[in-house]
């Protein structure tokens, strides 16, 4: 055997050991991230802070103190990367003595591919839901990858949204098209689903119940809902993917007006349809909707036993008789009221914002993202705030159901949404900037602990954003944090493929057993007993704390120079903080004994199961 065969692995092992020893031991200077902070960030943040200061005075609350920088780093890491900072990162952060290191690190974290990946996954829940969708036709992975690229490149959010609403082509090569194909179920495209989603995700309004009846509380009507839906009706699928049907199938010569007088379909009319490759059955019937202007043709499909259904609309349009199929115009067969309607594309307010030309979807996209449409910017600000804090800014209501921006009752309390929204719009609808502003604002930097706050007081503080709320981590944040805590080095795209695969595979299994909160992810939730059992007794948690030379448990106990250093490292790696005095007193006697490996494992177990680990704070 050649000496190289022995020496090479030895060198590698030593190198790995030395690197992690550096990370585990005292602060050493590694690279600090370099990224750009927008020059006018300070002004905007100052404006936001003034707004809150005024509000706190009005509300008569004394805000909590400032959180320490490590806590804020943990919050940033959880909300932007879905995991906690690694020991390696903590060491680098602590060694960074720039006065604006938090802003610097926020900017660097936004440029890290983990931000694009994680934020895309979080936003995708609002855009395409959490369901697996119809096999083959809906590719969630492609959608996420596309959205991730947009976020990475900081593509203006209004462009991102327009791309989704208007997406055409094959859903595998063009990820945005999956926004549309997500609405396909049982092989049928449901345009209502897209309407409801468009309004909820992009405008922060729930119109869903207007699909079947007028909204009981708000002013939404069924007619408005149907008008919006009409924009999505022409969506069709073909070999080239998703495309929009033309508005008309063919034109009937004017003399056919004669044939539209009664309910019977004349042979001549049937013949004309056949000429244009549309066959209608013998039992088909005509139904006039608007005298001398609009008719529907009822036909049956498949079996003869089925009831006749409206299949075609015939319009008198500038003296021409235009025929459209139900894939081209929205024909509503309302069995509830026994009424048939042909609904043209329409919007509930400000029709002048609609695009001048293009397909109905393109016109709708212009309307949704119109610079004067305050609902558009309010909705995304409220959501991004929610992703950062775990609670939407407009508390006590679903993240996607904001009041009318002109509602005088909430105008004042929600004015911040407009303030952030305006800054967002003026800066090219940059999601990254929006995150930076929120991350630098005072509420994000406040501590979550307030000495001697009673129940009522705490509620007041939370209501005014004068204390950082405790929010339960999402399942993938819990697993991400556990895996990260079990490794000294940062797990990211530079990690060994095997480590990343492990993370992916374990995340899937764990999230499945832990339970996914689904689309309503920003509502208040408590943990469950099976989750506690999984954390305490599950295989994964146990494996992660095995003292092996590759995990942090093994490395920390093998490489730390003293029991104090071991204890500090364990706390930093799990909770991103150092132990308090009582904690030191409790744990130090357990460490530095012969059974230190076991003691470290038992310490990790406690840290993993503590509320501090599972709740953002």
């Amino acid at each position, binding site marked *: 055997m050649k000496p190289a065969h022995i020496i090479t692995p030895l060198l590698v092992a030593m190198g790995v050991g030395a690197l992690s020893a550096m990370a585990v031991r005292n602060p050493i200077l590694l690279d600090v991230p370099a990224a750009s902070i927008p020059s006018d960030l300070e002004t905007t943040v100052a404006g936001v802070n003034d707004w809150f200061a005024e509000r706190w005075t009005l509300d008569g609350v004394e805000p909590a103190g400032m959180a320490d920088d490590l806590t804020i780093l943990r919050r940033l890491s959880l909300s932007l990367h879905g995991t906690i900072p690694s020991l390696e990162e903590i060491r680098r952060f602590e060694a960074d003595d720039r006065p604006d290191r938090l802003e610097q690190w926020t900017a660097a974290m936004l440029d890290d591919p983990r931000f694009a990946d994680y934020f895309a996954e979080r936003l995708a829940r609002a855009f395409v839901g959490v369901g697996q969708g119809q096999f083959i036709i809906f590719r969630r992975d492609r959608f996420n990858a596309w959205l991730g690229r947009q976020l990475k490149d900081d593509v203006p959010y209004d462009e991102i949204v327009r791309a989704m609403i208007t997406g055409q082509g094959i859903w595998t090569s063009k990820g945005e098209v999956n926004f549309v194909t997500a609405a396909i179920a*049982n092989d049928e495209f449901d345009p209502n689903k897209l309407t*409801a989603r468009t309004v*909820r995700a992009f405008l922060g309004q729930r119109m*869903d*119940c207007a699909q079947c009846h007028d909204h009981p509380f708000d002013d939404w009507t069924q007619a408005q809902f149907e008008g919006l839906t009409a924009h999505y009706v022409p969506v069709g699928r073909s070999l080239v993917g998703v495309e929009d049907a033309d508005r008309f199938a063919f034109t009937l010569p004017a003399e056919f007006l004669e044939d539209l007088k009664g309910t019977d379909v004349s042979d001549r009319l049937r013949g004309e349809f056949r000429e244009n490759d549309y066959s209608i059955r013998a039992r088909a019937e005509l139904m006039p909707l608007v005298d001398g202007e609009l008719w529907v043709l009822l036909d049956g499909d498949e079996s003869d*036993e089925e*009831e006749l259904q409206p299949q075609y609309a015939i319009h008198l349009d500038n003296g021409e008789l235009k025929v459209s199929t139900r894939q081209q115009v929205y024909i509503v067969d309302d069995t509830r009221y026994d009424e048939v309607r042909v609904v043209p594309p329409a919007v509930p307010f400000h029709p002048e914002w609609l695009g001048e030309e293009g397909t109905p979807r393109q016109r709708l996209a212009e309307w949704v993202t119109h610079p004067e449409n305050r609902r558009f910017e309010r909705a995304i600000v409220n959501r991004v705030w929610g992703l950062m804090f775990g609670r939407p800014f407009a508390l*006590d*209501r*679903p993240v996607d*159901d904001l009041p009318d921006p002109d509602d005088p009752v909430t105008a004042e309390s929600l004015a911040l949404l407009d303030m952030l929204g305006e800054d967002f719009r003026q800066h090219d609808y940059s999601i990254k900037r929006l995150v930076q502003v929120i991350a630098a604002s005072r509420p994000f930097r406040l*501590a*979550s*602990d*307030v*000495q001697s*706050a009673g*129940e009522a007081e*705490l509620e007041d503080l939370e209501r005014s954003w004068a204390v950082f*709320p*405790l929010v339960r981590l999402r399942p993938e944040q819990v697993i991400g944090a556990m895996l990260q805590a079990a490794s000294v080095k940062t797990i990211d795209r530079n990690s060994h493929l095997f480590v990343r695969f492990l993370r992916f595979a374990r995340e899937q299994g764990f999230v499945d057993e832990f*339970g996914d*909160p*689904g*689309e*309503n992810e920003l*509502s*208040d*939730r*408590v*943990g*469950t*007993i*099976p989750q*506690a*059992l999984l954390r*305490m*007794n*599950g295989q994964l948690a*146990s494996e992660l704390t095995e003292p092996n030379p590759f995990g942090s448990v093994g490395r920390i106990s093998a490489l730390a120079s003293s029991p104090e250093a071991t204890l500090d490292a364990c706390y930093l790696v799990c*909770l991103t903080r150092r*132990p*308090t005095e*009582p*904690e030191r007193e*409790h*744990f130090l006697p*357990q460490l530095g004994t012969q059974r230190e490996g*076991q003691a470290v494992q*038992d310490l990790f*177990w*406690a*840290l993993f*199961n*503590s*509320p*501090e680990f*599972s*709740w953002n*704070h």
Partner: protein
Amino acid sequence: MTDMHNALKRPVSRRDVLRLAAGLGVSFSLPALDLRAAAQRGSERPRSVIILWMAGGPSQLETWDPHPGTKYGGPTKAIDTTVPGLQIADLFPRMAEQMHHLSVIRSLVSKEGDHERGTYFVQTGYRPDPTVVHPAMGAVLANRLQDPELEIPQHVSLASGDGFVVPRGGYLGDQWDAFRIFDPGRNIRNMQPRVGEKRQQRRLQNLDVVTSAFRRGRARAVEQTLHEDVVERALLMMSSEQLKAFQIDEEPQEIVEGYGDSRFGRGCLVARRLVEQGVRSIQVVLQGFDTHANNFDGHRTQAEILDPAFAALMQDLVERDLLDSTVVLCVGEFGRTPQINPLDGRDHWPLGFSCVLGGGGLRSGLVIGETSPEDQVRDRTLKPADPVEIPDLYATILARMGVDGDEEINTPIGRPIAICEGTPIASLLEEA
């Protein structure tokens, strides 16, 4: 109108004892409390519900509503039962002996013909609504009729798979999701500590130290997370004698065999044991009813599992005097089409399907509703005679369980929602 948050915050019994115990490093294996609900018998007992969930949508024609010799009857024959005049499919000879304990509804109607949506509707009594998740009926009962003595979950799903079949707590909160057991009677997952008693105690002490540090300045906020509460309840469950209800080793061999050697059969046996322990809501899942092809072979296989298990369960509940306090409901998300498709299968049919229910003081021996497959195929707007809406079914069960279905719960989205929108079926509530 009740505020759900108050219900959540109600302290759990023994919790403070346990917290103290944790703080002092006292063992969690406190002496077992003999509070088996089975100590009480007959109608005096607290009530439970067992829902046998027929996932995939069973064919009414091959179960409780056969139409032999008709256009759509297929090869399935009908047999007499212990209820005069009531015939069921010949695939269920053992159930035929038990029908006098049960009533049959043959006229359930729904508008949901998709598995996921249909399951949601039949489990909750509400049609899917993207703005709010309604709780499954099992979760509602567990939530409304909480038993503080119970150390194991009040809401359990046995033989459950993943996904939408698991009954959810919905707006009541995730803690009312059914506790899932994949393979009943076999090992339960994550229930054993990974280390010995001594180290477990050290771990719990450690946990207390770490938690105390976090609680400083956040006492209220941490309490509101219910994190410690949940951990304590998990620990309580791990050390509880009541866990034995999930095991079947102590059951005599002939009993185990009577239920049949299947996940579903063992699930039914465990369900009976959970009822004895006082668990409020139990779902036992039998997958495999989605017979778009080979409907008749498919239902034969299903019946070979369902018939012995269901019959053994009924017999057991009667013999142990548990039936008066236990509602049993056997239902799926919809029925199957009268028409037989070219693959010899039947497709989804929510327009008139069957369920079987009884126990808990519900009137037995009734047959409610009547389908006329040929007429309904001809005209889909026709309803079966005496149609029963799903919410009415639940209103009936709630009434028997002593829960006010009209009560409105203030949901997290700020909209009060009634527990149930239905009206009880009078004939099932009448004294016989």
